[in-house]
């Protein structure tokens, strides 16, 4: 049997065998701590880190917006956790909102934020507050530029925002040094386009890897000042704050699967080219 015929037979492989190979490729690195990986902090992540790190402690809060749904939680929740660790360790206050239109992002925030805050002994409504969610992201972003309390009259738990100590001196974006949007859709760029252009808000993007290539024009033009891109971005950020976590293991699996997919593409194309040559 020659190579071309062998490859053609391989192309007819049952898809469940491919699925099994992928699954094994993801699982094995967890137990073998292989292959070796190297994480270099990219300039986008370094920019994001520096902007957050420059926020004075116990002062104006970082605005953290959970603009994603559970489908993207695997990529974005690690970023949220890392950002919260960073802020709480430096005693930077955090103001949490969600503009994911179904409200599912708020459900994620309601699980993640209190848990991480409790680890650092941060006090609710003093060191952090969760204002809940608003459905129409564009309108909410622009409305917050004038009056955040009007946009969120009560927090996620039903407490009037006027009675929250952290919100005492917060009126609008003038008191917000930066927003870190964790987004799986175009909401990420909405922050740059709407409040970024109208109110000059500093926007940092924690985005799924799908959007990293698309968001580059905003980074180059300065509309977005820092980007955490996908699982790798989360791993880089964790490394930068000195708390390497599960994402390192995740990056090992990424490496195996990337090379597996490159191998699949290569094999498929070699078979295709050999078949074409044979026909010619």
């Amino acid at each position, binding site marked *: 049997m020659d190579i071309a015929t062998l490859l053609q037979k391989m*192309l007819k*492989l049952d*898809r469940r065998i*491919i*699925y099994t*190979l*992928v699954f094994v490729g993801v699982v094995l690195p967890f137990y073998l701590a292989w292959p070796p*990986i*190297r*994480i*270099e902090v990219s300039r986008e992540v370094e920019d994001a880190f520096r902007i957050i790190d420059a926020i004075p402690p116990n002062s104006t809060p970082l605005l953290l917006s959970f603009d994603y*749904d*559970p*489908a*993207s*939680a*695997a990529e974005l929740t690690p970023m949220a956790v890392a950002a919260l660790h960073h802020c709480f360790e430096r005693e930077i206050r955090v103001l949490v909102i969600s503009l994911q*239109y*179904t409200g*599912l992002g708020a*459900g*994620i925030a*309601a*699980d993640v934020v*209190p*848990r991480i805050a409790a680890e650092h002994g941060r006090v609710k409504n003093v060191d952090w507050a969760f204002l809940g969610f*608003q*459905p*129409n992201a564009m*309108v*909410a972003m*622009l*409305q917050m530029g*004038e*009056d955040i309390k*009007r*946009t969120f009259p009560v927090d*996620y*738990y039903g407490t009037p925002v006027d009675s929250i100590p952290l919100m005492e001196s917060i009126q609008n974006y003038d008191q917000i040094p930066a927003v870190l949007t964790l987004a799986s859709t175009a909401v990420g760029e909405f922050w740059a386009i709407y409040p970024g252009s*109208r109110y000059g808000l500093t926007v940092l993007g924690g985005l799924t890897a799908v959007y990293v*290539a*698309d968001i*580059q*024009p905003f980074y*180059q033009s300065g509309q977005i000042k820092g980007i955490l891109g996908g699982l*790798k971005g989360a791993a880089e950020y964790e490394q930068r704050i000195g708390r390497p976590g599960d994402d390192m293991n995740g990056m090992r699996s*990424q*490496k195996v*699967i*990337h090379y*597996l*997919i*490159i191998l*699949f*593409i290569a*094999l*498929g*194309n070699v078979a*295709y*080219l050999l078949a074409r040559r044979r026909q010619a």
Partner: protein
Amino acid sequence: MMKTRIPLLICFVAGTFMAVQYFIPAFLPYYDRVNDYIQIVYAFSIVLGLASVIQRHTHRVQRRGPEKRRHKDWIYSLCALAGLTVMLLAGFIEGRGEGTLFQNLFNAILLPVQATMFALLAFYLASAAFRAFRTRSVDATVLLLAAVVVMIGRLDDGATLGIPKLSRWILDNPNLVAKRAILLGVGLGMASTALKVVVGIERSYLGSSKE
């Protein structure tokens, strides 16, 4: 008049006001009020979608038609309605927040299901890579080569071959110009479509019935 002219007038007045307020600070109090209105009506539009879902599953569970039969998948629709009922009761009686049944159901059912559904895509991607991604033309070859370089470069591998630098170059140069051109085109298109909606040239949202 009632079916076409009044909606067009509402659209024009609301749209013009919201466009013009950007330039006139004196409109600010009214702008804030209209923003609240938009959020409320938008919320109702989402609830409308949910009502359609509930209606669909309720119909499946009911005995309908001349033979008074249920839909063949009625048991699944019953599961959906049961999940809905439990969630409503949990949310309205116990409330939301840490440790509540509402939050636990979100964490234990909704989050895993949605996350896993999208995780299936990785398998389909691998299968497609094997069967479908072919370098049939120069364009496809450029696309696949760029993809492979970026995939390896993101892992910070291939430094001796300069792959991370090449990956960075692709991201900062051809990718940037392509995405910027698309953004510019989309931006101009969006602005012109929005303007057409406001002035009533674009009226597909009115449906097809004549007045």
